[in-house]
């Protein structure tokens, strides 16, 4: 029997296509459009080829922002992932404590990002904020609005407070899904607590931890609102991470071409890192 070709089926794809076009393709293509052209008033465009890309890739300003961004993300991952796992391991496994801990852990995640920024700004103010005032009273010379080290310390602390819970919740879910028989088998073998963690819990948590690391990488690498409200990128450019620098370039200086090129490079970095990381982690995973 011959199958008849029916092109009408394509009609079913239209709703999805329209949706994706509006929320992804059109905005992205606008950026691509800006990235290769020079813009003047009255929508006059001139072709510039790869000039903006070269300019961005060679600029010290971009290198500095990228450096700050990578450092920030690494610090965040190195603190939040182990801390999250540790907290998940110490959380109660049954009883009323479970609900209490889960609710407490979810709280920071429910607070809007700009509110977190504002909260920490006030909390850390050296004269009236509880944290800032206490630190100074204890003899530390702390002022996050003026000293870049303090600004970094505060930004990292804020992010750890805000997002470690996510790692905790994911790890906790991973741990709870390990069947008790694994622990019994280890007990029968006489395995140490460390071996149980290293050879049972960690491998069993691999998938959720991969997701946790990916989410924390993406979020911290693209962080904007919280440091914008907390430090505004300052003092100087000390906490001007990629996104803050990008907004400065696009909306502050109105350099739409270079900003668009920078957006694409930024996007490309995030995409590549996620792809490479995910594939590395999921290699040899098979069907289990």
């Amino acid at each position, binding site marked *: 029997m011959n199958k008849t070709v029916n092109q009408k089926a394509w009609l079913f794809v239209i709703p999805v296509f329209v949706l994706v076009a509006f929320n992804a393709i059109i905005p992205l293509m606008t950026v691509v459009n800006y990235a290769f052209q020079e813009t003047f008033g009255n929508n006059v465009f001139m072709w510039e080829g790869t000039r903006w890309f070269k300019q961005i890739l060679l600029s010290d300003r971009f290198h500095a922002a990228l450096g700050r961004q990578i450092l920030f993300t690494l610090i965040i991952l190195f603190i939040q992932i182990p801390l999250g796992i540790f907290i998940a391991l110490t959380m109660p496994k049954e009883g009323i404590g479970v609900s209490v801990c889960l609710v407490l852990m979810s709280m920071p995640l429910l607070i809007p990002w700009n509110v977190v920024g504002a909260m920490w700004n006030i909390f850390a103010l050296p004269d009236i904020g509880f944290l800032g005032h206490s630190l100074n009273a204890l003899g530390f010379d702390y002022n996050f609005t003026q000293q870049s080290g303090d600004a970094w310390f505060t930004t990292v602390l804020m992010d750890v407070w805000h997002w470690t819970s996510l790692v905790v919740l994911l790890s906790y879910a991973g741990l709870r899904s390990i069947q008790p*028989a694994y622990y*019994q088998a280890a007990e*029968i073998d006489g395995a140490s607590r460390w071996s149980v963690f290293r050879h049972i819990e960690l491998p069993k948590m691999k998938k959720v931890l991969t997701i946790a690391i990916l989410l924390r990488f993406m979020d911290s690498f693209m962080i904007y609102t919280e440091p914008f409200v907390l430090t505004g990128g300052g003092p100087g450019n000390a906490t001007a991470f990629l996104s803050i620098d990008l907004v400065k370039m696009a909306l502050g200086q109105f350099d739409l071409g270079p900003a668009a090129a920078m957006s694409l490079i930024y996007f490309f970095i995030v995409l590549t890192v996620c792809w490479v990381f995910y594939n590395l982690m999921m290699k040899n995973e098979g069907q289990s």
Partner: protein
Amino acid sequence: MSLELRSVEKKVGQETHIYETNLKFEKNTINVLLGSTLAGKTTLMQIMAGLDKPTNGEIWFNEKNVTGVKVQKRNVSMVYQQFINYPNFNVYDNIASPLKITGVDSNEIKNRVGKVAELLKLSPMLNKRPNELSGGQQQRTALARALVKDSDLILLDEPLANLDFKLREELREELPKLFEDRDCIVVYATTEPSDALLIGGYTATLLEGKIVQHGKTLEVYNKPNSLQSAQVFSDPPMNIAKIKKEGDVCSLISDQLSWKVHSKLKDGEYKVGIRPHNITTYKEGSNSLEISGKVLISELSGSESLIHFTNGDLNWVSLSNGIHQKNVGEQTKLFMNSDEFLYFDETNKLVNNV
């Protein structure tokens, strides 16, 4: 060598999981714990292993009280229903893991792992990780881990339950051979009466946290001490009917069917237990009884026919060899082998001398 539970009882909160239990397993025996889900098989095994403490009572091993001695000090191994292996170790390291922890030297480990892998047909996949193996191979790896150290007590908690039919059959046949010539006590928990019959050895039937009967597997099967034990040890479920005995004649209360017995048992009401394979579409034994009924369900499986039918107000199950097609709703005649009937009194105890 022997393992003995003395008045062991296990309570969790208000709930009793194991009622007072006395059980003795002898050296070099395979012991089947037979009971449905939640009968207390796993709890009992964990108490035997030392993974769990009894609320009351004592566990004696080799004439020594080991109640409260930690599992690591007891030289036991356990295999679970789930395939429990270290996920990031390959098969070799998995099998070697119990030896490495106890500090056996590396040549000795190599030797023993090689032998046990050969026995369980794992030699070609020693370098693979558990998630690259089939379910059957994963369970073989877990079995190898249990066999590699010379445990005094090997506990198998429904090890075949998660395997598909073919793999289960295959491994079930190998299991008893694996434990031959081993100086240990094997305890095997299962819900399947056929497992117990195939494995042989000794069987303890369990019902709702109580040991109903313990003895040689075939004896428990042929001479269940009570209706409960017979029910636990019968799959498909045993047919049970009330009967009246008057003189030399027994008759079903729900039907006119009656048959002759020679017995000094006093007259009265009893229950008769008839295993499904003793009701067949053909005559078997010298004292065959005819029973008629309406077919409810007729299932064919390979070389057996399972016919559910009603007679009186009871539902009956029959199991015949060969393929016998029956239509649902059809009136049919079947034959019961009355030599194999089991009679129970009003307290559900077996009465042998009917």
